[in-house]
């Protein structure tokens, strides 16, 4: 059976991950354990969640620079509200998700109604969210709540003593939901259509304005969820946290095989993008002599590799059509 060329970028992503893991394993046999896998998932849970939102935005041809700030805002919001009130954390979560979703929707509305580049609008959103976090507090606020302790201490013990934590589970669930939404709903189909070309999408009956608002609202929701997970992971809220996470998320999406100009890609690919980046870090930790800056350089090289690869794939697939221009 031949493989549908649609899947080439996804397969390339998975192949690179498997290859990287194999290299790691050959060098450090200890890395092939559920313990390492469990940690990989837990450490990158917040990144995976926010990257799912970013995937959706990028698939539709947009970009959302605000997510890193929104995560920091979320952590601070939860910590401060828990400190100041006696609300149950779950109620705070609902409140927070409503805020971040509305925030995303508002950005989408501005992008569409004022026809402004998403880049600039979400850049302003990035300042706004970070600023709002500062206004709540400028210190790191610890979260001490029995519910938090409970979540932190619950996990599923995988064979081999690896721990699948709650937040890792949430991340995997998010990827699943994101994949279903992107690939199995009309909303998802419209989103791909928008990424393929706004004009054509409109001709095919997509309501661009509504869709744009929904997409950025989705990204805002995911950033909020990621903020919750991050606050559980660190047990605190800090307004200076997760600076630059938006770029890490974008990098993960691109390494995951999604085209940065929109219209083609996979949510599952993004998971592997995140894991590949996590793996590089784990390798460096295992090695002990390498320095963390190699992570950035390797990620940059992977980015270049994927962008050039996609450029090449695009050129090949458009070769058939370019006859009319030649």
């Amino acid at each position, binding site marked *: 059976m031949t493989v*549908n060329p649609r899947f080439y970028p996804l397969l390339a992503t998975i192949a690179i991950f498997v290859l990287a893991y194999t290299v790691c394993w050959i060098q450090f046999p200890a890395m092939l354990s559920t313990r390492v896998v469990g940690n990989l998932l837990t450490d990158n849970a917040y990144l995976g969640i926010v990257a799912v939102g970013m995937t959706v935005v990028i698939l539709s041809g947009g970009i959302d620079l605000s997510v890193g700030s929104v995560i920091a805002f979320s952590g601070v919001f939860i910590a401060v509200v828990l400190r100041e009130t006696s609300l149950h954390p779950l109620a705070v979560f609902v409140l927070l998700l409503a805020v971040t979703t509305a925030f995303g929707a508002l950005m989408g509305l501005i992008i569409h109604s004022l026809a402004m580049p998403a880049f600039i609008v979400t850049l302003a959103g990035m300042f706004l969210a970070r600023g709002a976090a500062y206004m709540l507090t400028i210190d790191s606020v610890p979260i001490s709540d029995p519910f938090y302790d409970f979540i932190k201490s619950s996990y599923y013990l995988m064979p081999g003593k690896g721990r699948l934590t709650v937040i890792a589970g949430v991340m995997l669930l998010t990827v699943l939901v994101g994949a279903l939404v992107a690939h*199995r*709903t009309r909303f998802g189909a419209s989103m*791909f*259509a928008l990424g393929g070309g706004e004009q*054509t999408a409109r001709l095919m009956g997509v309501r661009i304005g509504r869709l744009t608002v929904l997409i950025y609202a989705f990204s805002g929701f995911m950033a909020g969820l990621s903020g919750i997970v991050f606050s559980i992971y660190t047990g605190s809220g800090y307004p200076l946290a997760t600076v630059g996470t938006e770029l890490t998320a974008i990098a993960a999406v691109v390494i995951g095989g999604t085209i940065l100009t929109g219209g083609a890609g996979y949510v599952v690919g993004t998971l592997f993008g995140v894991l590949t980046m996590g793996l590089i870090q784990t390798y460096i930790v295992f090695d002990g002599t390498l320095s963390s800056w190699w992570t950035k350089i390797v990620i940059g090289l992977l980015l270049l590799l994927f962008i050039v690869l996609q450029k090449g794939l695009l050129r090949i*697939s458009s070769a*058939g059509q370019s006859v009319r221009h030649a």
Partner: protein
Amino acid sequence: MPLTIRSLSKSFPGAKALDCVDFDLRAGEVHALLGENGAGKSTLIKCLTGAYRRDSGEIMLNGEAISPSSTSEAQALGIGTVYQEVNLLPNLTVAQNLTFGREPRRFGFIDGTAQRAEARRMLSGYGLDIDVGRDLGAYSVAIQQIVAIARAVELSGKVLILDEPTASLDADETRMLFDVVRSLREKGLGIVFVSHFLDQVFELTDRLTVLRNGRKIVTEETARLDRVRLIEHMLGRELSMTEDAARRKTDPNVATRPEVVRFENFGRSGVVEPFDLTVHRGEVIGLAGLLGSGRTETAELMFGVRTAASGEARDETGRIAHANPREAIASGFGFAPEDRKTDGIIAELSIRENIILAMQARRGWAKPIPRAEQDRLAADYIEKLDIRTSGPEKPIGQLSGGNQQKVVLARWLAMNPRFLILDEPTRGIDVGAHAEILNLIRQLTDEGMSLLVISSELDELIAVSNRIVVVRDRRHVAELTGDDIATGPIVRAIAAEAAAQAEKVA
């Protein structure tokens, strides 16, 4: 009568695109809509599909007056359209494209299996055996066209508009498409077929309507027209009407003047077949042919916009370098392209800056043209070409089409090229500016410049040319001089089929 249009009019600022046009379409017929660029075909289609609001007139579908305000509304009413640039999404699968907006769902999620089955059902009548799970973009344009037709028919089902569907198809693909169109005709659809390939019009269509300058010229059974009559309708000249008063007094000795440039065996297969052409000093060569015949491509090859695969250009001193526009300009060539908006003007920049652009690029960035000199040039050309503007600092984007064209001409005249190519210099220009540009062409050649003029208006070519080259099917098929520069011979050369080709071979 599924579709009837009565006295439809549509104006744009400064131009009347459609002037009281009547059109009707029967069920079970293929009706060709013909006309050169700017004749009003696309405006008519856009009024039908709701992309434009008409100014006046009425559109009746099955006896009911309709007035669609968007493409999806037109689609819901029963009018489907397939454009030349396929209006589907290449990044989605064939199945996703076909079922877009109506995907079969189960438990709220799209059911992929049912979706593919539905897509296969929709394609079943079209003789296509393709994997509907693959990206649409992975298939040839022909298949994409058929998929687009299948979607349009499924959604609309009464009237199908095909806008230049064969422009990028080869012969086999065209045949495949025609089979599809014929089978739809059998099923009783009314099909509007827009094309500039006359062979295809004669092969496929039952009736045809010709538009010119926003007016309906004729509606006729295709079988009752011959090619020559049809081209006359399209290009606007009666053969019987003899001599062109405005015809230029040709200098009989023009061919003995010194050569400016000679193209030898020059061309690129698939673009324009290799040709020979010698240009003399002060000569105007007209390039005649229908849209898509290779007129513009000839100009682009000469100016280095496309690279020639064979042949070269020479003058008395040897080979002329023109591998890209910069080299061509350095060799004394100039080119005013057909699409002013995308290839000619720099909309935000001023008239002055647009005029000096080519000269400045030639001098290099380090040697700016002194401001006084720029002002003088701008003032000069504004006066000489009678550019209507409040001043030289006005952004060119704010001028009318005719004045924009004059600025683009001024850009090249300032370079004083030896060989200037004008692609449709009078397209979209009002009558006054039109005459002025023709006068200008005469004046330039009197001063010794050589020109290649491309135009779909024969009158215009006849009025200015010393020699006319006829292009057909991406081939230079005839060269007319002297008394042959008249509508009759040109139209016959454009219309001739095998005869001319045989001649060429011999």
